[in-house]
């Protein structure tokens, strides 16, 4: 499908798409990593499935890591394979309630925010929204 570039909206991943080959990149870059050609900005839709994951079990070295206000808690991270022909897997912190429930293939929705992309399990509402869009 074609992703309609829209004005930067909360949640959409601001990536880029090559003008010559079917390559999408995140974050946006001015050149295509495959052919070196020019790219155009593209908002990538965040629906997808978990391609791989791990858990950060100990606090990363600080700096550069900044501990959250409540202190370090182990967190999951992974790559989400975006659906709908985006052809790209995006690194994200996984906002899951239970680290033991993380599985390859689980449906997730990635969204952009202040920090790195974050992914949370797709709810029924998300899926309906995607179908309706």
């Amino acid at each position: 499908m074609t992703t309609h570039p829209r004005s930067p909206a909360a949640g959409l991943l601001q990536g880029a798409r090559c003008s010559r080959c079917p390559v999408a990149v995140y974050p946006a870059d001015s050149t295509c990593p495959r052919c070196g050609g020019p790219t155009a900005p593209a908002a990538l839709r965040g629906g997808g499935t978990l391609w791989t994951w791990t858990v950060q079990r100990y606090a990363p070295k600080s700096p550069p890591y900044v501990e959250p206000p409540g202190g370090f808690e182990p967190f999951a991270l992974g790559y989400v394979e975006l659906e709908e022909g985006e052809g790209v897997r995006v690194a994200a912190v996984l906002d899951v309630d239970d680290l033991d429930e993380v599985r390859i293939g689980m449906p997730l929705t990635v969204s952009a925010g202040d920090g790195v992309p974050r992914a949370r399990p797709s709810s029924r509402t998300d899926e309906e929204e995607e179908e309706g869009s």
Partner: protein
Amino acid sequence: MSSNDVLICGAGRTPFGRAEESGRQLAVSAVNAALADAGIPWSRVRAAFGGSDSAGLADTLVAQLGLIGLPFVNVKNGCATGGSALVSAVNAIRSGMADVVLAVGFDKHPRGAFDPRPEDWGLGEEYGSDGLMVTTQFFGMKIQRYMHDHGITPQTLARVAEKAYRNGGLTPEAWRRKPVSAAEVLESGMVSDPLTRFMFCSPGTGAAAIVLCSPEIARTLDVPATVTLRSAAVRTRRYGSFEVFSPSIPGGELTSVSRDAARAAFEQAGIAPGDVDVCQLQDTESGAEVMHMAECGFCEDGEQEKLIAAGATEIGGTLPVNTDGGCIANGEPIGASGLRQVYEVVQQLRGRAGDRQVPGGPRIGFTHVYGAPGVSACTVLSH
């Protein structure tokens, strides 16, 4: 023997681990050991290539080795530093630039080294502040997907580490020499799922050096016990590979720089993976050794599960892998690792590997390094 052949006439290494000496001092020790092994004086060396990632410039070693006026080129190529130095040395001989050439690699990393900064990788600072600039995450995520696709179990990862420590115990210069059981490996604490603490190598200190020469010079100088370097190849990643610190990776089937470098090395040598009697594969952690067995062409994806359980990669197995304990037991001084591998295979092919000698007189050896940001160097050696 083809006219392109280059001979390894001397090999030396220092103990790896923690050391009082500087990286440069260790490099001088390794070079002198390699020269003594070859029976060639420093004054007879006509060109040198070498480097470290973070322990200084190799060309300054001439102050301690002797100021003899030879060209000495610094190499800085991440984990492929040793391999790139070796390829440069090979090409110097093949081109006629020099007939006796040194390759040296060394490093000294403090405990818990490798503190990458996001800006050095072209990433936004949020990748650092949110905790994604951690190398072990990449290794965990790559083997996690591989295990899912190809049926590799945590037990197999543990067996790889168990073998590394067992072989380290047979290697006087190794860092980790105490045996660790597979059960202890699994219970050593999760670092980056599915990889536990004892499955990882540690940044460390050490040096290794190789002296190479042309076949004519080997005859003239009456060098004992040479090994033929059949090929040496270095490659960088192609589009579609999965590397450390990637904010996104392409969809579809992954490409592999290790697969590319290994294939090039085997093609240049006219030798197939099935001909190899002993090999060294980059084992930054257990999962890397498992995946590199397939990426370098030694088995199909997924066959490792049965091969490792059957002992195929043990010293007495059908394909001994990392007979000196690899990176897991030797640690990782980045600049030195690639040449440590060559040192070990040279010892094996000469039948001088002591307690860890592969039985039956191995004739063909292979080495493989892999590192960030997607670089690999491979060699094929024969005796």
